């Protein structure tokens, strides 16, 4: 391009060249030149949020449901600091984001100017990488490099801080070619070591009690990774469990599916993890919600660990066969090598193992005592799931954080990747509503439901206004128990039932609130009327806030209590949960 461009125009041009269609943002003094440039084009559509945290979660929902990076634009100072929670969330869950923050002019940096903050300093530890652009000549390179870094290797958020004078400055725009982009220092390893993969397959071929333990890495590696996982599971006949972040990579309707594992995972998944002889970890990171007590974690297994991030290997649990690489490529190699050795699944050799698994399954750890008078939260999710199946639409679920999130993971079933959006690593209350907005922007015709709690949803409630503005028909399904349920549950189990500040005494009238925002409000407290109310929610063409009044003191089970290994999981019919945590558990505080 021969004509000179301003820095602000370069930002828009680079976004266009990267194929960005939507950007979530909020204007402010330092960002005005970029907003001005955006106003004069129609390739990139801007979604005006109500709070910058909302913008980052929307971008996360957008990214997670499409596989494309989410893009955020905020102003300097408070705009940037408000975005920090979403950046940290995206870093923990490996979500590709590019967040453009405006900055005060370079000559004012460090002078405590109006709306100035040290954005690169503040975001250094909650981004994969960040830039302060000091010269307009660097801007085109940095814009494209940021997309490369955000989306490749282990994905993550990248911040580009652009001072206002750089936005005004004139320069030449160029589209750098990929080879000259980024340092020789940034070279994510995509292909797994062939010897290691062969060793892993050899181990799998001798396994008698194997299990696939899959995570968010399979989702991040793209839909083909899920395809290869399904193929490998079929070839081997092995059972499959997954972390919270990995739900949907393997279909819940498949008989080899064991349900989620970990603190609130199923009895069969956790027992199988404990008793297995070969564990195949694909794209998961041995998070502490999964492992429980490290020294009692799957004590007799040989462990295979596939991860694109070398620092994940041996960070928490020592493994026998580490494979560094992209899950899709490693899974494809595993399938190829397995096929080259045999056409038979290990059906006979692992028959006793499946028999054992069936015994654990028979415990029905997700069972609960239903009620005719109050709506049980589990029941509400089951009915929601049944109702959405009949819709004939793509269904995307987002959640907030807490009991409702775990119940959603247990009782809503996913058959496809990228349809489940939740804050796993950081555990950010307030994630679900804006994430649903982001998902709906990317999938205007889909059914997008935020399964929420009444406490979490109030953290980012204002984004309902965004949904109304852009006619995004998101459904917010609030399991309202008038408690911060998970906090109350921990206090119940571990702090002598002293419920310090885990309930709200003045909740809003959610129906009126929905109406005040210009959406629809529905309330239901009768199990007999629940189906009709869900149907009403699904039939309404616009945003709905559905206030489901549920059982107030239900605990989320099963649960692995602290100081306990996987095989000492608490089941729903256990009489007194407090007694199960013993002296040793107490000492672990």
């Amino acid at each position, binding site marked *: 391009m021969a004509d000179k461009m301003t820095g602000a125009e370069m930002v828009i041009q680079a976004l266009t060249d990267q194929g960005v269609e939507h950007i979530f943002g909020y204007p402010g003094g330092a960002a005005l030149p970029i907003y001005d440039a955006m106003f004069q084009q129609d390739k990139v559509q801007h979604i005006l949020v109500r709070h910058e945290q909302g913008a980052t979660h929307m971008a996360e929902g957008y990214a997670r449901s499409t596989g494309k990076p989410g893009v955020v634009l905020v102003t300097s100072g408070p705009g940037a600091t408000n975005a920090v929670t979403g950046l940290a969330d995206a870093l923990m869950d490996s979500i590709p984001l590019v967040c453009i923050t405006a900055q005060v002019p370079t000559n004012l940096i460090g002078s405590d100017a109006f709306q100035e903050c040290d954005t690169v300093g503040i975001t250094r530890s909650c981004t994969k990488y960040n830039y302060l652009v000091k010269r307009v000549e660097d801007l085109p390179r940095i814009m494209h490099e940021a997309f490369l870094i955000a989306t490749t290797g282990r994905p993550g958020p990248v911040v580009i801080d652009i001072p206002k004078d750089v936005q005004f400055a004139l320069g030449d725009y160029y589209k750098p070619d990929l080879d000259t982009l980024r*340092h020789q*220092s940034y070279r994510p390893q995509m292909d797994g070591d062939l010897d290691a993969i062969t060793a892993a397959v050899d181990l799998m071929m001798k396994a008698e009690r194997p299990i696939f333990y899959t995570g968010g890495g399979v989702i991040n590696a793209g839909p083909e990774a899920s395809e290869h996982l399904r193929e490998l599971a079929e070839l081997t006949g092995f059972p499959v469990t997954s972390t919270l972040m990995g739900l949907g990579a393997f279909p819940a309707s498949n008989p080899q599916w064991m349900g989620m594992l970990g603190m609130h995972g199923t009895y069969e998944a956790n027992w199988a993890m404990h008793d297995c002889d070969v564990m195949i970890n694909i794209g998961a990171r041995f998070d502490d919600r999964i492992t429980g007590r490290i020294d009692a974690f799957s004590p007799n297994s040989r462990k295979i660990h596939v991860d694109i991030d070398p620092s994940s290997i041996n960070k928490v649990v020592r493994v026998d066969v580490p494979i560094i690489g992209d899950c899709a490529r490693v899974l494809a190699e595993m399938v190829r090598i397995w096929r080259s050795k045999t056409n038979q699944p290990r059906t006979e050799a692992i028959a006793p193992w499946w028999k054992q698994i069936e015994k654990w399954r028979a415990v029905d750890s997700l069972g609960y005592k239903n009620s005719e008078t109050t709506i049980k939260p589990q029941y509400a999710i089951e009915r929601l799931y049944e109702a959405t199946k009949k819709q004939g639409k793509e269904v995307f679920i987002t959640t907030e954080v807490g009991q409702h999130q775990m119940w959603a993971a247990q009782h809503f079933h996913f058959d496809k990747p990228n349809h489940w959006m939740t804050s796993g690593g950081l555990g950010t209350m307030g994630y679900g509503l804006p994430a649903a907005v982001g998902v709906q922007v990317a999938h205007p015709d889909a059914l997008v439901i935020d399964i929420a709690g009444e406490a979490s949803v109030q953290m980012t409630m204002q984004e309902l206004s965004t949904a109304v503005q852009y006619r995004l028909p998101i459904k917010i399904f609030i399991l309202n128990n008038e408690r911060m349920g998970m906090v109350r549950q921990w206090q119940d189990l571990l702090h*002598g039932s002293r419920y310090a500040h885990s309930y709200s005494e003045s909740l809003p009238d959610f129906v009126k609130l929905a109406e005040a925002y210009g959406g629809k409000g529905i309330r239901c407290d009768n199990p007999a009327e629940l189906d009709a109310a869900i149907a009403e929610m699904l039939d309404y063409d616009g945003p709905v806030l559905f206030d489901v009044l549920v059982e107030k003191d239900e605990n989320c089970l099963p649960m692995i209590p602290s100081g306990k290994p996987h095989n000492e999981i608490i089941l729903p019919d256990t009489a007194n949960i407090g007694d199960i945590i013993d002296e040793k558990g107490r000492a672990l505080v």
Partner: protein
Amino acid sequence: MNAHLQPTGSAYFLTKETQETERHTLSVLVDNEPGILARVVGLFSARGYNIESLTVSETEHGRRLSRITVVVIATPKVLVQIKLQLERLVPVHKVHDLTAEGASIERELALIKVAGSGEHRAETLRLADAFRAHIVDATVESFVFEVTGKPDKIDSFISLMQPLGLVEVVRTGLAAISRGPKGM
């Protein structure tokens, strides 16, 4: 007084570290770009690693590469993590654990100011000679010595200067390089 109200469990599983710690010297090759030192140091503080010594300077001007030499004390498991976490930083090219990879040379430079008169002055000079310390500044009542060597040699020189009128010390921190023909 609230002992009986102590929580009976924790949301996290706490374990005690049982491995012994070791002292290792790492050599880190990085792009010399703004904020790189903050990135490296921030990583250490964010993940709870301890830095014993850290030196940094541009070593390849044309390619704008800097070399950071960092001495850490950690358990073997944490040492591996430190290396991997450093390699994960986008502007980091290579990380070598010089202590683990075989023989290496470690040197430090110190400037040491000593003030005194009479017999102390003569003794100071005799010791400086023994330690091959150079005089880089002298007045009738003081010397500044430049001394290089392994950190323990500098430590002992400083402790000998202590009773002879030591005023102040400045040290560069450790620079280290592997022995033999191979580079980083």
